[in-house]
């Protein structure tokens, strides 16, 4: 059963040094506030998993939380590069970052296998590319009926999933809608599940296209309005495209990034008055 608690308490109780953490949300519902709370609590040596490392991971990597990144597309969508991610990979700043690289289809299927209680997933992919030569979590499997060779990827079972949704009810049932991405698979693949939500409501009103996760597969729910900014929460906020553009300048230089980090994250409580 999910417990309703504050974001600092939720992060403190569920996210530990050395954990494999999946902070997910496909463009939509990215739990940026939760990521910044992880920075604020000084978590270290995290293996970060995410299909699209985006500003949230650029910040966590630049802040030194991560020792490894498992991902499939690492850019600032519509803007360009993630400079902190590049600086870590190319120059080991602020610390070395090991990477394990997949395609979207491959990483999505790794979550599916995790959610399904299977050790691996079968797919068509990667063949002929240079990815298998550099990623040892890509292998092949032969169909026992046709003899055809296909690609296998191992299950991803993060220690903790950090996700954002529009709503939870007081019992801790969570509802999200719009682009639902891999949220359900990540929640069901992970040992622990932390949701930030725009709002806690008395009752979840059924919505077209909604995913509802019952309270008994969620551990903590924290009400954090705007917790997905600069990404968005369908029906609550719009994507702040200017912020994504402005991040390019903030993150390009180590000093401006560090100043930003001290001022906007470490120097705040994260709790909006």
């Amino acid at each position, binding site marked *: 059963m999910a417990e309703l608690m504050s974001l600092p308490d939720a992060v403190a109780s569920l996210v530990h040094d050395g954990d494999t953490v999946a902070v997910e949300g496909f463009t939509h519902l990215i739990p940026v506030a939760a990521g910044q709370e992880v920075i604020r609590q000084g978590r270290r040596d995290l293996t970060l998993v995410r299909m699209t490392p985006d500003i949230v991971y650029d910040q966590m990597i630049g802040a030194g939380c991560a020792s490894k990144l498992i991902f499939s597309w690492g850019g600032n969508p519509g803007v360009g590069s993630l400079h902190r991610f590049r600086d870590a990979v190319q120059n080991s700043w602020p610390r070395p970052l090991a990477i394990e690289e997949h395609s979207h*289809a491959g990483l999505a299927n790794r979550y599916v296998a995790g959610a399904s209680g299977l050790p691996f997933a079968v797919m068509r992919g990667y063949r002929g590319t240079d990815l298998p030569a550099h990623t040892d979590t890509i292998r092949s499997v032969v169909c026992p009926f046709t003899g055809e060779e296909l690609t296998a990827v191992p299950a991803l079972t993060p220690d903790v999933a950090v996700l954002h949704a529009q709503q939870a009810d007081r019992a801790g049932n969570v509802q999200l809608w719009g682009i639902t991405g891999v949220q359900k698979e990540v929640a069901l693949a992970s040992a622990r599940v932390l949701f930030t939500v725009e709002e806690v409501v008395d009752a979840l009103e059924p919505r077209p296209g909604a995913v509802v996760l019952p309270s008994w597969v969620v551990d903590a729910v924290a009400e954090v309005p705007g917790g997905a900014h600069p990404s968005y929460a*369908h029906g609550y906020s719009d994507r702040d495209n200017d912020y994504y553009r402005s991040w390019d300048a903030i993150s390009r230089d180590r000093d401006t990034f560090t100043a930003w980090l001290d001022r906007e994250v470490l120097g705040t409580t994260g709790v909006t008055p």
Partner: protein
Amino acid sequence: MTGWTTSEMMTVAASRALADRATCFVGIGKPSTAANLARATHAPDLVLVYESGTIGAAPDRLPLSIGDGVLADTATSVVSVPEIFNYWLQPGRIDVGFLGAAQLDRFANINTTVIGPYDDPRVRLPGAGGAPEIAASCGEVVVVVSQSRRTFVDTVDFVTSVGFGRGPGDRERYGLRGRGPTQVITDLGVLRPDPETCELVLVAVHPGVEVQQAREATGWDLRVADDLVVTEEPTTRELEVLRAIEATAAPA
């Protein structure tokens, strides 16, 4: 009509590559602009599929990201990311995949991963995203990319998405079921793979472009088709619609 940019010419040429009623797996940026231009002009029933899980999206403004809310609001159906790849892309249901490239080689292999050695990259690029499986499974692939020696290289530093591998037979060998790249549309012209050798051949130049420019912007000895044509320039309507579409994406 005159007074158009090479970038506009490239987008218009890309939009013309899309037949009406086709299903198209769309990446953000130029491909999305071109697909929406096609939908607003000659292909009103073009089905746009985005990797965020939106099927049949009909945005009334240019989406600013692959997961823009306008895609979900206007889609026939919104599915999960695993489903869009497993149930819709992988079985070969999508006719055309639109891809960009940081590097492209003579066999239309695409690199969006690294420039330089993988373990000590000169430039670390975003990576694969949905591209490897789009390149593998769509009925055909159209690549939209500006042409320069930096981009058009003899051999890519990293094969992120397979065009024709090292030549004829490689796609079959890898079990890739789509036909692969059928057109590479650039700011200078259009290249198509030679049916025999799979090597990219310049088949069209855009109005005002000399073959020599295309040769100089290519990192291998570029072959030119005997029946080279000049692309029909953008029509007034194409440009008006394109500019109207792009205006909707202007920074707030």
